[in-house]
Each structure stands twice: as C-alpha cells, then as structure tokens.
C-alpha cells in the first residue's frame, strides 16, 4: 500500500483537480518529488528555486508536522498520509483590501484565481 498525499484545494488546479495522489515513497521528500514530477506546475508552489520547501507550506505525516520530525527526510511507510496544509485567511473578503496596493502581486493573484475558476469546480467532485 503506497503513501497518500492530500492536495489542498488552493493547489488542486495545478494537480489535475485531484484531491489526493498515491505514490511509493520512503520519505516525505521522495513523495513530494513524485507529486511534483507528475504535476510539474505544483513545483513552484511547494518549493523555492533552490529546491527547498517554502516556509509557508506546512507538511504533515499523519498528524505530525515534519518540521518536528526529520523535515523532508522524514521516513514514510505504506499507508501513511502526507498532508499539505496551506495557510488560509478567509473569513471572508480578503481581496478587497489587496485590490489597490498590491500591483504585480495582485496580477499574480488574479492569474491564479482565473486558473482556479477555469478548474470549474463542481459539487459532485
């Protein structure tokens, strides 16, 4: 039984709309490597250019934060669940305050959002 990687909804547009994916992997890093190989677009959201996990991306093996285990080298065994936990801020009308000042970042946001709209989420998924 392989390792299951849970993909959070903000990142699903870059993962073929999938909510999870399964891989054979001995460590967290290996599983995330498989994930970002299969879904190349995910890579830049999870890793920096020099291949480090981004600081705002939290990864758990089962219910433990890998920062308190062996980070990407944390070993995994068959049946483990790896969760990518994004920071979400909604409560919920975040965009308004960002609209005017954010400039280039906002364009990036709009780009991401339009991509998410394109993902055409529906309740049956």
């Amino acid at each position, binding site marked *: 039984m392989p390792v299951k990687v849970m993909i*959070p*909804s*903000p990142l699903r547009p870059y993962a073929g709309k999938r*909510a999870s994916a399964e891989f054979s992997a001995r460590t967290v890093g290996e599983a995330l490597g498989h994930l970002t190989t299969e879904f190349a677009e995910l890579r830049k*959201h999870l890793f920096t250019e020099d291949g480090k996990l*981004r*600081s*705002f991306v*939290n990864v*758990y093996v089962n*219910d*433990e*934060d890998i*920062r*308190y285990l062996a980070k990407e080298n944390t070993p995994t065994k068959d049946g483990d669940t790896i*969760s990518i*936990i*994004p*920071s*979400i*801020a*909604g*409560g*919920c*009308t*975040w*965009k*308004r*305050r*960002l*609209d*005017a*000042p*954010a*400039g*280039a*970042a*906002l*364009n*990036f*946001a*709009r*780009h*991401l*959002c339009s991509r*998410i709209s394109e993902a055409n*989420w529906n*309740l049956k*998924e």
Partner: protein
Amino acid sequence: MATTTQPQTGAKPAASLSNEEILRYSRHLIMPEVGMEGQLKLKNAKVLLIGTGGLGAPLGLYLAAAGVGKLGLVDFDVVDFTNLQRQVTFGTSDVGKPKSEAARARLANLNPDIQIESFETQLTSANAFELFKDFDVIVDGTDNFPTRYLVNDACILLGKPNVYGSIFRFEGQATVFGMPDGPCYRCLYPEPPPPGLVPSCAEGGVLGVLPGIVGSIQAMETIKLILGRGDSLVGRLLLFDALGMKFRELKLRKNPNCPMCGTHPTITKLIDYYEFCGVRGEEAPGPSVQVPEITPRELKARLARGDDLFILDVREPHEYQICNLKGHLLPLGELTRRVHELDSSREIVAHCRSGKRSAEAVDFLRKAGFRKVLNLKGGILAWSDEVDPSVPKY
C-alpha cells in the same frame, strides 16, 4: 468611535442573575457543566470579535445568546448584498450600513441584557492594544493575513487567548492560540504566503454554510475557555472538509524558536503587518489613463467658493487613517460593485495617493456614464505640496 448598548456592566463582577435571566438561560442552568456558576462566568466575560462577517455572524449570535456579558465588535466594512449569502447577522435592510453597527443592533435585539460595544474601525498596530485591553478573549474572524498576524502578536504580547478560525471554499481550520503553554499562529505559519497565492472568498467563492460551521466551532471554544470546561483546541488544528464532510486534526506544537512566543522572542512590539505580508507594494506601473483633471489649487479655490463637489477617495481604509481630505472612502477595488453609492448628477472629484488609482476610477466612472467626474492631479501628495502641508505624505 465606539457605540455602546445599555446596560453598562459595572466594575464589580455580577454575583447573581435576575429572574428574567434565569428563565432565559434555563437550558444552560440545568446542565451541571454550566450551571449558575458557569452562567455567571459567561455574564462576567468580555469577548472581542475581530470581524463581524462570515465567521463573526455565528460567533456574535451564539455568544450574545449564551449571555456573554460584554461583546466588542470590530469591523470597518459596510454590509453589501454579496454578504447576505453567509453573514446571517445581517438582513437585507442592513445593506449599506456599517457592519459593526448593524451587528450591534441585531445582537442587542437578541439579548438586551448584555453590553455590546461596536468599533467601526480597522484594527491596526496603532489601536490594537487599546481595543484588546478590556477584553478577556479575542476571537479572530478576520479575512486577511496582515490582520491575522496582528491579532496573534497583540494577543501574545498582552497574554490573551486568540480563538482562531479560517475558511476557504469548502475547507475550514480552527484552533486556539495564545494560551500560556500553547502555540501561536507564528508557530504554525512563521511567514505568510506571498500575496495572491491563496485567493479570497471573493475570488474562490465560499459555500455560505461553511463560515457558519467554523464560526460556531470558534463560539464553542470561546465558551469552553470562559467556563474552563472540556478539552480545548489548544495544540490541535482542526481541519474541516465540508465537501467530504470530514473532520481531521493535526498536532500543533509550540515552536521553541518562535520569534513571537518562543524562549527568546525577537518580536517584542507590533510591526507593520502590511509590509510583513508584502501587500503594501507599489502602485501598478505603466502609463495611467488620460482623464479630465483638476489641480489641487483649482480644487481648493472651488471648495472655498462653496461649489458642490463630491470628494471620492478611492484608496484603502488604512491609508484613509493616515490622512484624508474628508472624502467618501470607496476603494478602487470595490468601485464596480458599489458604484450605485455614487450620485451621477453631482460633480465628483476622485483622488488617491498619487493620482494613478483615481485616474482608473475616473476612467471607469466615465465609461459607466458619469459625466461630471475629475481626477485630482497628483493626488493627496500634490495636495500636501501645493495646498495644505499639514496633510502628511506617505
């Protein structure tokens, strides 16, 4: 800035309930886990809600109904039609009213025995301590990263619990930060994601019931903290997936190296959270649109003459707090949706900080059929240079 609903609670804690209160809270009183002792704890508790929107709605309603003696409501926003799908405190007749005031009126009607204070202001590093100091529990129902880090840091610095909830589309998170031995928000997320990585509800949408569920969980945790009963979410991040209808929980650990609550904290005062979250930014580069303009000197002369001009400020609320020309605040990003607030028969002068955003606003308004609309050339910066140097530049 605050509006208070009677009755005022005195400095002395309440030691008894009236007969009306006993009747109202009878379903609490007959539970041994609450009882008279617990109900009096609720009556003597002071809870501050940051945000009265999607999460704030069930929070306000349940905490008021439960008899929390003093509720503070902080929100600078105004009720609009798109809020009504999930912000169940508000009715259709509240559209256009300040949220903090509309929520205060609704909660006062629900429970006239409690004190409700509304603060129609944006929470900032400058006012956070003043707002928080009189409250026992802070509940974070905000919608943006800068405010979440601000709430966290202010709670840690003041030693107050922070009942956290957050939602995105079909997913929610809840926990309790800021307890003496528990983690803080920065232990979980030392840094915010870059602006735009996580879209807002306005972009990604949200199922209306979701904030109802997550806000109710926050209300429950708040009441448990006040009663001192049950197992709090301290040290646990509750994840709710509405689509799969699954609850999961992850362990949250206090990070000994946390810059806020670790053994050697490096953050010892409130900072600029917009800068920290990278959302201050510069105004978008590129040529601004060509629109009819008015110079600051011309504007001053026309105002002095008593001309009927409507000053439209299209900046953000936090910028309005820095300085303003007493204009009507309607941020550029909300203009499309709130254009009906403007009277096209009046002459409008739009301004921002430098004149770029207001040029976009003027361009939009002219295309929307507004004929008498001008852009203040050079914005508030030029106004400060040419007309009134007492207006600070930023």
